[in-house]
């Protein structure tokens, strides 16, 4: 894990900041330097509200490296109110209770750490609405 990379991703990971195209209005997450719809480079900062609905969910029992500490963890596709679909871990919920249709809210949680003495990355997860 590289500190500079983690720092660069903070607006997206901690504040759900993306962009709205200044020409066609298309929303992008994370921030888009260039609008993939119209090609404009006139991007305006846009902060997503953090509320959404679970579209699909799985409980992970065998994780990629760096995520073993979370096993078993619910991993979901969350559709934000603004229409963006976002892969994200769910938190503050028994994995057995996670289901499509669950209303969720963004919160900030630990995602990964580099060993016992390395940097810790915090980023968004989603908790049941009202829990975060």
């Amino acid at each position, binding site marked *: 894990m590289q500190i500079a990379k983690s720092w660069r991703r903070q607006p997206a990971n901690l504040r759900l900041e993306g962009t709205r195209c200044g020409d066609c209005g298309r929303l992008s997450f994370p921030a888009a330097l260039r609008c993939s719809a119209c090609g404009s480079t006139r991007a305006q900062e846009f902060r997503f509200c953090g509320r959404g609905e679970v579209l699909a969910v799985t409980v992970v029992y065998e994780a990629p490296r760096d995520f073993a500490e979370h096993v078993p963890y619910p991993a979901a596709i969350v559709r934000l109110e603004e229409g963006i679909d976002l892969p*994200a871990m769910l938190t503050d919920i028994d994995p057995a209770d996670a289901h499509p249709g669950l209303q969720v809210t963004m919160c900030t949680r630990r995602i990964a750490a580099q060993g016992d003495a390395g940097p810790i990355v915090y980023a968004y997860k989603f908790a049941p609405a009202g829990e975060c």
Partner: protein
Amino acid sequence: MTEQPINIRVAAAGRTRSAEEWELGLVDLAVLAGGEVLDAGGQPPDAIITANALGDALGDQRNLALHAADRLGLHGVETLCVSCDEASGGSAIRQAIALLLSGFHQRVLVIGAEKTSDALPDQLEAVRATGLDAAQEASFGFSPTVAAALGMGRYLEHHGLARELFYHPARIAHAHGAKNRLGIFAWPLTVEQYLKSPVVATPLTVCDNAPLCDGAAAVMLTREPGPGVHITGSASVCARRGISAPVVDLSLPAARESARAALARAGLTAADMACFELHDSSSFLAVLSMEAVGLAPEGRALLDAQQGAFDEGGQSVLWVGGGHKSRGHAPGAGGVFQLVEAALALQGRLDVRLSKKEHALVQCLGSFGALAVTHVLTVR
């Protein structure tokens, strides 16, 4: 613009077994497969293109084509490395076609090679995940396996199907792969074994995923006329990146368009194909691929598979050599393995019963379906 016809002959083919090869490294595997092609005789290649997905990220030999060329004694040729995630094999073949059609070269050796067994499973999965969106998916604990699990659950719920139906893609792959002496899991799979397999990420179990392995496959491609198997159609198409699209929409637009374009280039339809080699790194992608290329209507792939529609002896046989599921999944090499097996099957050199149709469709996917490369083969 009139498209130039494609008529590239597969002059020779070679492959290693798919296994955990403790005594062979990445370059060794490439040399073995490439060497088998050279030993088949004929003029040497003017160029070598390698296909590999994970080697750079695993800290293995970079610039693989150069090192393979040297070890094969081929100095003075052009070398090129292709890395397009799990679509590397198909993409390397396509680059070879471009070099041949352009007239730059007369014979191109394509070698797909992958070495996975030096890494532990969790590291492999983390490296595979960087073929997805590295910042917003891999960095959040998502991987191709997690994505396939999400998609599988959504597919079953959306179409109102029983979980047990996912046995059938694996059943077909193993039934055909049981006769592939070079495959890693060359045995039939019973429904009891399938239902007892451990859960990796709900509802996906070990038997819903192809086993990662070491392996290499190679083909010599040429414009020189002659009898045998020819590549008559080719197309590479990308769609929106990200796992959300295939999971939410339950479709693979890149696979659909790539198959359509490749078939159109060959002047054929899916009904003309004797066999299909589709991307079964997971049964979820296998099912969506089957529907994308026109083997089954949306939501019907598992039901048709259950009815035996894709078993050997039928009109549309799947995974003649066992697919990635039974033969084994060497990610960057998979597209070349697929082409080799389809070519051998069309020539009657694989122990699998096909119809008398003379064509095959081969498709590999990269970045969880965002990239699809399709080739059509014709035996003459």
